[in-house]
């Protein structure tokens, strides 16, 4: 199991690369949510043999001991994030706060700011996840509107719900396919739980890739086709455009690896904050967690649909 994880975790449980991300964006724009890069959700895996010492920490809201795991996935049930091992007492919000995704968001390494999309006449650069109502009001997450009192908002909620179900489908399929995830876990340590869950997710994606012949390559080809069609067609109908460059005082840049983030960006000529600098990180965090942006996202969506 350790071998499976070591060998394939970087292949199968990774963030979508640029080409795949473009495909996801195109698909989600066709489904009514431009700028949505997948859906995010948490679920619990009951832990039968939880040690007494940990039982308070791992007590979930249904009164059972469980381990929480968080998944961000796209339409093809391909997980972009798989984070296991949070204590069951955590809610969606606190799992997100402790997940490796949030670390990257805070440093501005994720999501990539190079894709620009237009909503209600406003252009945005920050991509978002479709999430359910348990998530915090960040600009990173598109929650359903709490009180939809308008047909437009109702429609938005409907679309958002349809996209959000991707993550739920991942769990449903994972459980029906791998029974060890369905039944209470009988391991004594969290580490083995994490290993098992990761190995299962990797094997699942591997099996899926072989079942649908050449799924990954098909994704890439269709994304390339969509891209070339966009270039030839008019710019107005495109779901998103590649951003030309940074403007004054804004967070901009591709997804930065942790190693390269430390080096000063030579190409940057003072137009925006240097990628990886403290100011950049501060701005990225503020932008991703902005509540006003989140609320205006709601408004724009209700006008957009």
């Amino acid at each position, binding site marked *: 199991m350790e071998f499976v994880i070591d060998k394939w975790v970087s292949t199968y449980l990774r963030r979508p690369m640029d080409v795949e991300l473009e495909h996801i964006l195109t698909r989600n724009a066709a489904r009514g949510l431009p700028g949505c890069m997948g859906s995010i959700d948490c679920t619990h895996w009951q832990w039968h043999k939880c040690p007494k010492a940990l039982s308070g920490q791992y007590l979930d809201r249904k009164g059972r001991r469980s381990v929480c795991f968080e998944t961000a996935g796209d339409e093809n049930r391909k997980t972009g994030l798989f984070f296991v091992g949070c204590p069951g007492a955590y809610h969606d919000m606190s799992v997100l706060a402790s997940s490796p995704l949030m670390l990257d968001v805070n440093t501005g390494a994720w999501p990539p700011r190079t894709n620009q999309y237009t909503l209600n006449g406003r252009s945005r650069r920050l991509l978002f996840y479709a999430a359910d109502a348990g998530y915090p009001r960040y600009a990173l997450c598109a929650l359903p509107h709490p009180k939809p009192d308008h047909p437009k908002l109702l429609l938005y909620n409907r679309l958002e719900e349809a996209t959000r179900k991707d993550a739920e489908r991942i769990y449903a399929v994972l459980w029906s396919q*791998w029974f060890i995830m369905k039944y209470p876990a009988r391991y004594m340590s969290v580490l083995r739980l994490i290993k098992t869950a990761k190995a299962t997710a990797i094997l699942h994606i591997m099996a899926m890739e072989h079942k649908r012949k050449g799924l990954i390559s098909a994704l890439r080809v269709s994304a390339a086709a969509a891209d070339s069609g966009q270039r030839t067609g008019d710019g107005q109908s495109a779901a998103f455009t590649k951003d030309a460059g940074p403007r004054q005082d804004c967070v901009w840049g591709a997804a930065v690896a942790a190693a390269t983030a430390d080096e000063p960006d030579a190409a940057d000529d003072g137009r925006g904050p240097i990628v990886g600098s403290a100011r950049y990180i501060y701005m990225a965090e503020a932008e991703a967690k902005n509540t006003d942006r989140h609320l205006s996202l709601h408004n724009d969506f209700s006008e957009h649909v």
Partner: protein
Amino acid sequence: MEDEVGEDELELASVLGARACFGARRARLDIRSGHVRKRVGGSRRWRRPNRQRDFDLGALAILRDHVGVEWRPPVYGEDEFSDRFRIPRPAFNRLFRAIYELPFCRRTVNATGRPQAHAIQKVAAALRVLG
């Protein structure tokens, strides 16, 4: 995978050699340290006898059922393969090819001095636990 079945005699020879080596080494160490080994559990009188498990037969059965030996087609088809192991055959082959040379999957000698399970048995067992 068919190659493995052909190497049975070779493996048996290496197993016997290893067994003899271990036994001789243990006896030499005991003589040198001058203590009499106290036998704990294991195979002795009035204990449950060792089972003569035939791991070769088990591995052969897996191969016969799902891969096919001696140019005969496998007993079970693709659907049953993915029902049993939860992953389709190409994925299984890929997994097996990546895994079977690991130290864990290499054939060892167990405490009764007989060869342990094959790599394919270990992979199949792991998948059966997961799925």
